[in-house]
Structure formats: structure tokens, C-alpha cells
């Protein structure tokens, strides 16, 4: 028996007296956690002490900052579909988690975050490293709970995992006082399967289903838009089955990317602010909009006043609070996307919608000519983000996990990387958290150790969590880092150029030589600025075992187009800066 097996076996003993902190570790193992991310400190020390005896059964990754730990847990959760786990100490440790927790809340990422807390007798006394973590995290967690007695630990952890993963997933925080960690309990673990005040999903309403089918069968120009709900509900095959049968073109939100093969003939591209031309203008021309597992974010809809007013709307969604929140629906199908799409596919008539699909192809041809060609095959000397992203994606035969940070490069990554399997595109959507990319890539690599994991980051965002290079070096994680360096906070610079009269207020940013920084951690890397050296540089990056950092010099004044300006209608999408000044 290996040490790992011995530890796992020991963790499964029931009815034994152990400490609260050992119960924390055993409960995590019981929930199937294999990798956790964290940073020790005073109030969580008993848990770290208990972890020492289970360090083979439960792999702990020491990040360089708690924000790194929570983003890594998010990346891990997003690629695996499992609950991500992170641990931090009280006070500053816990507050450093908040950005990631807020990110996970808005992007529906299942997380269990465990924070240490001062001894219960000191609560409310402004003790050293005390902060009101339950109060602080309340608006950004699906559920949170403070544990002050050791007996409550197993049940609270079971509830935490159940809540985080079920229904619409989200982050859960458990704040455990030091005396609860030190105290003893008779350990017994039972998974949670039910909470009477919580309905994770509603059964499918058959009448509504029939109404939806009628609308679908009668539609002449139906259009399907999907979000991350497809992957969260493991409904990728059902989505493909539905559009294959009905011939309905489908477009994705940023977080829906990779749920449908990039080369599927009915995959018409990305929605929203920097999405594709066709999906945006056709939103306001379709006669039926079928939204699945998405929440009509303002970056997707533009102004709601003119959004798909001509169309009937079917909304397939697991969270009742999303129905009619932003867009009024004609038929709301509440429940699990997988079940609903399967049932719906059975009862709808087969169709082709040839002429309608052709309209998307024509729109694509316009975008291709005006935007895509010059992004992918530029005539000018400077490298573009688009061509780098496409080259990297192609090198991996579109099989890599692609992580991005936030900004211009994120949009280029979404537009120009291609995907052949789901859960392969990891980015911060709703919160738009710069600094997300590098730590999320750490989590993604640990979740998918046998796949290539590439993170694209800008020179700004990379520096927000650059310290996680230390984690990559210590754990020898083969993350491939591509910094698309345009020496500017590019997205803000783009807005300044287009909407703030080119007043470039504090967007020019000095960066270190990233390759030298990587070198200081013992991570190999290279610079590339010339087109004819790009392919070789990419090849060397992938052929080098372990981590690698490639810094690519990008044309300074490149903008991301198409663009729906904030507050504009999706049908007023701009294809070039000249459009903007018209």
C-alpha cells in the first residue's frame, strides 16, 4: 500500500475521536478533493498541521498570494467540473480571497473556500487578524457559514460541497474559528443530498416544453445563443443534437466558448461587445431567440431597449432569478439544460434553415474581409494578437486548454483560438478580473495535467499576479505562458482613443523584461517580435518540457474590432475605427 493509499484509508475511519482540523482534511478527502490551493497563517495553522499527515492523499499547492489560490481553484474547477478548494487564514488572508470569490459568484464557478478565524471568545473584539469574513463575503457567496464548534465541521463541509456544485454552481465560504479547529469531535462523515430550503433545480414543465417546441417549429429565422450553462449542465452533446436536428445556427457568450466545436457548421461565433458581426446583427433580425444557460449580460445584449424586440424569446435556465431579469421571455423553461434540450430535441421537427444560415455566412464574409484577414494575415510589419493566438491554437491542433486574462488579448483569444473539446477555455467573464489568467492556468494544469495549458495575458494583467511564477516553479507545472505585450493597458487605451479624444490617461505601462523575470525563477523563455520567427518560437515553447514564457511584442495601437460600443444596440456593431467616427 502506498503512503497515499494509507492516508486515504485512514481518512475514511468513522466514529473516531479526532480534532476539528483533522475533520476538515478528512471531510475534504471524503468529498473527492485531490488538489487544494492555499496559504497558511496564524488562525488556520491547526488545519495546516493536520494536513501534514495527509499531504500525499490531498495535494496542497502553496501559492504566493491568496488571490492566486482562489483563482487557481477556479481554473481547476472550470476544467474538471469538480469543486475547487482553497484555504486561507483569517483577516488579510481571507480578504485577499474576496476578488476570486466575487469572480466565482458572477461566473457560477463551484468553490469551497475555507478560512481560519480567531478563537470564538475573541469574535467581535478586533483581535489580531480578525475581520468579519462572513459579513464581507455575504454578497459574493452562494452560501457562507461560520463554524465555532468542532462537531459542526463534517456536516458544514458536506453542505458546502453540495451547495457549491448543485443547481447553478457558485462559491461557498466556511469560516472556522481556531477553537473549533483545536477541539475534538467524534468524526463521522455523511454526504449532503438535500436541504429543505433549497431547490437546486426544478423538474421540467411539459406544457412549457410543448409551447417552446411549437415556437421552434414555426420559426423561420430561429437563432440559438448559449452560455456556460451548457458545460455546467454537461449538455454539450444535447446542444449539438438539438442544432443538428433543427438546423438552427448557434452563437456563444464568452463563457460558453468551447461547449460547441469551433468548426461545427452551425457554430456562427461569439456574441456581444467584441463578438462576431453575424451573431450580433442577426440577434435583431431573428424571429425566435433560444437562450440556453446564459444570463443576458449587458456585454452580450448592448442596450436592452433595442435588443431582439422583433423576436419571440425562449429562455432555458436553471436559476429562476435569471428569468425576466434583463430580457422578458415568452417561454421560460426552468431546469437543467441537459434534460430540457434532450426532451426538446425529441419533440421538434427536423429542419435545415438553409437560407437563414446562409445569411450568417454572408455576414461572416463581410467581417472576414474587414477585420479577420488583417488580424490573422496582417500586411503591416508588427505582430497582431490575433495571429499569435491562432498560430498557438493551430500548433496544439486546437486541443489545448486556453486560459486568458482580461483585456484586448482576452477578446483576441476568444475570437481566434479554436476548440475541439469542452471546458477548454478559461477566462474571467462577468467580473473581468485582471490577474486571473496566470493563477487560473495553474489550476487548469493541475486539473488537466496531460493536456497542454496555455495562458495568454497582457503586459498589464500579467503583472497583477506575476508572483505566481513562484508557484509554477516550485510545483514544476508545465504551463505555457504567452504575454502579448503592447506596452499599454490596451483595452482602456482603445476606449480612450475611440471615446475619450485620444487622451491616454495613465495607460502607458512600463514592464520588466518578462523573460528575465521568468529566468530568475528558473523558468525558460524567449522574446519574439518578428513574424518570420513566430512559428519557431511557438514550436520551441511547446517542445520545451515544463513551464515556458514567451513574450511577444505586439503592435502598440491595435484595436479590437468588431465592437458594440457600451450602451449601443447590437445591430450598430462597428467593424473599424472609421465606423466609430462616422
Amino acid at each position, binding site marked *: 500500500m502506498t503512503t497515499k493509499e494509507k492516508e486515504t484509508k485512514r481518512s475514511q475511519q468513522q466514529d473516531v475521536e479526532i480534532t476539528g482540523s483533522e475533520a476538515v482534511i478528512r471531510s475534504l478527502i471524503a*468529498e*473527492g478533493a485531490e488538489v487544494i490551493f492555499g496559504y497558511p497563517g496564524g488562525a488556520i495553522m491547526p488545519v495546516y498541521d493536520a494536513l501534514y499527515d495527509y499531504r500525499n492523499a490531498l495535494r496542497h499547492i502553496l501559492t504566493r498570494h491568496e488571490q492566486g489560490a482562489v483563482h487557481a481553484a477556479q481554473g481547476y474547477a472550470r476544467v474538471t*467540473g*469538480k*469543486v475547487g478548494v482553497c484555504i486561507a487564514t483569517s483577516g488579510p488572508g481571507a480578504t485577499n480571497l474576496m476578488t476570486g470569490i466575487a469572480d466565482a459568484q458572477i461566473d457560477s464557478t463551484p468553490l469551497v473556500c475555507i478560512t481560519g478565524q480567531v478563537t470564538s471568545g475573541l469574535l467581535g473584539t478586533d483581535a489580531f487578524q480578525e475581520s468579519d469574513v*462572513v*459579513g464581507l463575503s*455575504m*454578497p459574493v457567496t*452562494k*452560501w*457562507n457559514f*461560520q463554524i465555532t464548534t468542532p462537531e459542526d465541521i463534517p456536516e458544514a463541509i458536506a453542505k458546502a*460541497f*453540495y*451547495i457549491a*456544485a*448543485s*443547481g447553478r454552481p457558485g462559491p461557498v465560504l466556511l469560516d472556522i474559528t481556531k477553537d473549533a479547529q483545536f477541539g475534538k469531535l467524534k468524526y463521522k462523515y455523511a*454526504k449532503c*443530498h*438535500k*436541504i*429543505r*430550503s*433549497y*431547490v*437546486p*433545480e*426544478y*423538474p421540467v414543465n411539459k406544457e412549457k416544453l410543448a409551447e417552446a417546441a411549437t415556437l421552434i417549429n414555426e420559426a423561420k429565422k430561429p437563432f440559438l445563443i448559449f452560455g456556460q450553462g451548457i458545460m455546467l449542465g*454537461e449538455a454539450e452533446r444535447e446542444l449539438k443534437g438539438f442544432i443538428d436536428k433543427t438546423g438552427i445556427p448557434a452563437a456563444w457568450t464568452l463563457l460558453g466558448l468551447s461547449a460547441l466545436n469551433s468548426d461545427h457548421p452551425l457554430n456562427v461565433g461569439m456574441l456581444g461587445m467584441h463578438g462576431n458581426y453575424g451573431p450580433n446583427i442577426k440577434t435583431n433580425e431573428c424571429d425566435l431567440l433560444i437562450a440556453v444557460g446564459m444570463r443576458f449580460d449587458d456585454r452580450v445584449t448592448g442596450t436592452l431597449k433595442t435588443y431582439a424586440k422583433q423576436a419571440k424569446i425562449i429562455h432555458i435556465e436553471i*436559476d*429562476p*432569478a435569471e*428569468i*425576466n*431579469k434583463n430580457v422578458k421571455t415568452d417561454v421560460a423553461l426552468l431546469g*437543467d439544460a*441537459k434534460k430540457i434540450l434532450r426532451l426538446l430535441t425529441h419533440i421538434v421537427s427536423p429542419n435545415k434553415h438553409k437560407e437563414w444560415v446562409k445569411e450568417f455566412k454572408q455576414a461572416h464574409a463581410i467581417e472576414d474581409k474587414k477585420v479577420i484577414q488583417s488580424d490573422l494575415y496582417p500586411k503591416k510589419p508588427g505582430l497582431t494578437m490575433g495571429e499569435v493566438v491562432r498560430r498557438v491554437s493551430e500548433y496544439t491542433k486546437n486541443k489545448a486548454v486556453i486560459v486568458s486574462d482580461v483585456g484586448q488579448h482576452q477578446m483576441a483569444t476568444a475570437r481566434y483560438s479554436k476548440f475541439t473539446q469542452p471546458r477548454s477555455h478559461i477566462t474571467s467573464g462577468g467580473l473581468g478580473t485582471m490577474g486571473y489568467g496566470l493563477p487560473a492556468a495553474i489550476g487548469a494544469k493541475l486539473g488537466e495535467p496531460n493536456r497542454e495549458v496555455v495562458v495568454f495575458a497582457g503586459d498589464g494583467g500579467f503583472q497583477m499576479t506575476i508572483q505566481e511564477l513562484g508557484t509554477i516553479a516550485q510545483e514544476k507545472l508545465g504551463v505555457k505562458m504567452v504575454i502579448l505585450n503592447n506596452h499599454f493597458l490596451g483595452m482602456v487605451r482603445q476606449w480612450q482613443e475611440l471615446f475619450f479624444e485620444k487622451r491616454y490617461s495613465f495607460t502607458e505601462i512600463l514592464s520588466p523584461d518578462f523573460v528575465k523575470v521568468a529566468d530568475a525563477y528558473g523558468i525558460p523563455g524567449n522574446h519574439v517580435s518578428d513574424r518570420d520567427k513566430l512559428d519557431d518560437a511557438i514550436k520551441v515553447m511547446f517542445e520545451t518540457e515544463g513551464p515556458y514564457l514567451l513574450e511577444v511584442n505586439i503592435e502598440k495601437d491595435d484595436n479590437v474590432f468588431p465592437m458594440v460600443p457600451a450602451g449601443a444596440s447590437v445591430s450598430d456593431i462597428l467593424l473599424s475605427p472609421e465606423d466609430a467616427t462616422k
Partner: protein
Amino acid sequence: MKQEYIISAYSENHIGLLNRITIIFTRRKVNIESLTVSESALKGISKFTIVVNETKDKVSNIVKQIDKQIEVLKAFYHTNEEMIFQEIALYKVPTAPLMESDQIEKLIRKHNARILEITPEYTVIEKTGHKEETQELFNGLNPFGVLQFIRSGRIAITRSPIEKLSEFLKERDALLAKIESKGKISKV
């Protein structure tokens, strides 16, 4: 159009839930006109009654957000017309004017109020009713010098259908059993 709505919610009696519910209003910059929380007919289950002046769309979205909280059993909203509601007010007045004339006694009779306590110095009067009614009595008593005045939040029950919490819990159990038996809740 904004109007008064009564939001009701049943929840587990857990620490912090009040905060979870009120921040839903704060975040959307919606003012709470009145708030009452107390134990319901069933032990361990609390009832929230919250009065807001808002549009129907906004109230509907807020109620869904309340319902979404893990420890909330059920949340709903009604207009004033759909509910029978009541508030309670306490008034402390000096005892001397009560003794000197029958004006205060007449006010108490007219408003169906009652006296809770009389001491040589002060008298405490109780009145239940809608806000306008308790206010009217306040206006009547004020010339005699109201020493203290306090008004409660609103409590309300629906006109129809009959609200049976224990039946709701049974239905909820059946629903959860149905979802559970179909599996695929935990992906861990």
C-alpha cells in the same frame, strides 16, 4: 409605476440571514419602509414581512433573489389590497390631562385604543391599525404632550389562499425527493 408591496418570506432561523436579505435591497438602492421578523407557526422557521415602495418588476426580481438564498424556504409578494395587515403603536402621555378632562378618554374610545398602564406621572396607550390610523391618534394626542411614541413594522396575512406552511413543507419534501431520485445533483 411605484406602489407599496408587501414582501413575505419564510426561512430557517439562522444567524446572518437577515443581513443576506437586506443587502439584496441595499445593492439595488431600494429603501425598506418597514421590516418585521419573528417566529412563524412552526418552530425554527422565521417569517419576514418587508414593505417597499417600488415598481412591480423590481419587486418581482428582488423576491426571486430572496427566494434564491439557500436558507429561504419561500418568498412572495402582494399588494396591500391582497393582504390584511396591521401595525401596532404605543403612546406615552402625561396622566394629568387625562384626569383633568375627558378629551383623552374620548380619543381612546373613538380610535378603539386601550390603556396598558397608568401611573401618577404617565399613561401608556396602545393602538393597532394601519399607519394612517395610528398616526391619526398621534395627531389627536399630541396637543396633550406625547412623551414617547413608537410604531411597529407591519405584519400581514394573505386574503387567499389559506397559507399552510406545514403543507408547503410536505410539498417541498416531495419535490426534493423527485429531483434527488433523478440523480445528477452532485458532480463531485
